[in-house]
């Protein structure tokens, strides 16, 4: 791939990022991570409190990427077949079957937006697991492919009533889990409350130009991008040390206040997880106009790509977000390169 192609695509990516930043203010870092995830061809799980703009953020990206967009709301009575087909009585009084949200856009499905994913049953998670991993679905005696599909999902960790925890296997399918927090800047907070343009979310999202990216080119470009950005032996060694540290943080002198580190980690990052770290780091290097991955690129995506993959002892699960953040920061501080 030529440098000009990389530069062109970078220009589009930064344009998309810039446009989303105009709609969703004060979320530069999550927006950069979502952009990274799109070009890494990874699924994204947004996590945050109610009303912080998770859905708005994903809708804005969806508009900029283009392609087929489908959405479903997670509810406790949602069944896997609800994702595949609808049955209804037509005007002619006869039962009809139509394609569900997963099948409606066919192969052009670009974004599948699963709102409040933790309200869905584990059966639904199971179906989603396969779709996310293989990007295929068997229905009506036929295998359907969704080569361009990226799943955007969100959940809020605070509400526990009528929710189902997403199993670690399903979490591992997401490239990133991105925390969305209310910005601290007074000016932005005031704007979010008093600026009337935030009252109508549809009108707000419509401000993002459509089809900034060519969704059907993203897979090809993403693969080429991965091949264009190199990783030196020093960096490889560094990443391996990071990986080992997620499994045995105590071996690297990592401590978290109030936590028995010997009992904390049941399972560290998976090989797939570390592969995703490198994929995301390469995209981050490209977005920063570099031709090789630096430790700083790893740091930029490390929390978002690793934290949700760690499996902790049940006693520490309630404090997962806080402990994972401290542990991963400790790992970055403890491991040096070269």
């Amino acid at each position, binding site marked *: 791939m030529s440098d000009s192609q990389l530069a062109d695509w970078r220009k589009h990516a930064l344009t998309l990022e810039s446009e989303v930043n105009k709609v969703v203010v004060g979320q530069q870092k999550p927006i950069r991570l979502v952009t990274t995830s799109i070009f890494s061809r990874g699924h994204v799980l947004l996590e945050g409190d109610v009303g912080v703009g998770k859905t708005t953020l994903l809708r804005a990206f969806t508009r900029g990427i283009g392609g087929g967009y489908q959405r479903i709301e997670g509810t406790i009575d949602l069944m896997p077949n609800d994702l595949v087909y609808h049955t209804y009585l037509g005007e002619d009084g006869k039962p009809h079957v139509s394609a569900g949200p997963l099948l409606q856009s066919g192969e052009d499905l670009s974004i599948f937006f699963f709102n409040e994913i933790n309200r869905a049953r584990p059966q639904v998670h199971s179906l989603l697991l396969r779709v996310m991993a293989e990007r295929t679905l068997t229905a009506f005696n036929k295998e359907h492919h969704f080569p361009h599909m990226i799943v955007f999902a969100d959940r809020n960790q605070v509400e526990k009533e009528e929710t189902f925890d997403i199993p670690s296997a399903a979490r591992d399918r997401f490239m990133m889990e991105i925390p969305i927090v209310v910005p601290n800047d007074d000016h932005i907070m005031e704007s979010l409350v008093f600026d009337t343009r935030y009252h109508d979310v549809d009108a707000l999202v419509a401000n993002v130009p459509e089809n900034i990216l060519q969704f059907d080119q993203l897979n090809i470009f993403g693969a080429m991008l991965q091949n264009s950005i*190199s990783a*030196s032996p*020093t*960096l490889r060694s560094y990443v391996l040390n990071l990986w080992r540290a997620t499994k045995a943080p105590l071996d690297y002198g990592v401590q978290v206040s109030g936590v028995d580190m010997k009992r904390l980690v049941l399972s560290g990052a998976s090989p797939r997880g570390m592969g995703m770290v490198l994929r995301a780091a390469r995209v981050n290097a490209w977005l920063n106009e*570099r*031709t*090789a*991955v*630096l*430790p*700083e690129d790893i*740091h*930029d995506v490390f929390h978002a790509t690793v934290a949700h993959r760690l499996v902790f002892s049940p006693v520490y699960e309630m404090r997962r977000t806080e402990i994972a953040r401290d542990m991963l920061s400790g790992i*970055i*501080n*403890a*491991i*040096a*390169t*070269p």
Partner: protein
Amino acid sequence: MNMLIKKLSPQKHRDSEKAAWSLLLSQGRVLSQITSDKKVRFNFFNLYAFASLWLSFFSFILPTAYADETPLPDLDPKFYSVKVSNPTRDAGFVVGDALDRTLVITIKKPYELVKESLPIVGYEHRWKGQISGVELVKIQVDEKSLSEAMQHTLNLRYQVFTTSKTVKHASLKAEILNVRNTKTKEVVRLRVPFFDFRVSPLSLFGQIKLNEDMSPFVPPLTLDASSEKRNMQWLIGLLTLSLLGLLYIFGAYTWLPKMGGPFAKAYRDIRKMPETAEGLQQAVARVHQSLNITTGSSLFGNNIAELINKKPAFAPLQGQIAQFFALSRQVFFEPQAATQLSESPKAWLLKLCRQLRDCERGLPVESPQK
């Protein structure tokens, strides 16, 4: 005769005494008759009679008086106990030395100590007619009344007034105290054991010349302390080295405060590294190591501010540190990346290390590198 009388029994003693007095009286009567008859003439016979009268008297009376100093019987051991505390050594005393001796004598009733029999200060003790040369110079007596006894503590101080050419024997004499039975008035004696010791001469015979060595103008003799002095010098040297070593250890392995910091060590190490690609990698890694130690955690290009926050002394070199990370990026991660160094990387690293070393020592930093 004396010896004979000593061997007599007390009854025979008294008989002989009576006989002496009767003889004296009979001779006196004879003499009075002679004088009363007024036939007395001063002639040889009369002189003989007078002399024989007095000779008879002394020959009986004097031995009887001497017989009063015969040894008293010993006190039954069940009525007393003696605890003796002698000097701790029994040799090496010279003329003038004092020896302290403590006697704790407990005498049970009805016996009591005859105070007059206590040793007398200044009494010249003789042994076989010779002055022993050991004299009691001080005595202190403390008494303590017990329920059935009286305890006397005698603190005695003797002083040696004798010497000889060779080591000779001397002793603190066995003091003999008299004890009286308060009921029968019988007087018996109590003997305290003696203590033998040796008196040494002040100097070896023949080694001192009176004219030269005992002159008041001759300085006092000194012992040869050269070996002790030499040992002392060695020990003081050893002690000094030990203290210096301790100081070095307590000073975090530096001789002066803020000396031997991470960048000072890095500067020394980098100077020895070769001017090759591998040498450059080692040098950059060495600076990374020093930065990490200084920061207290791993330092990367995106958190230089953390170092500046923790160690504001490095603030003037923030630009150079960023430039170093650009060099590190080229060396370790991205060979195509450009650096803006105007000289060889190693020379630049040495300059940087020297400046960082000055920062860590709190010294003013030279003008930033171009």
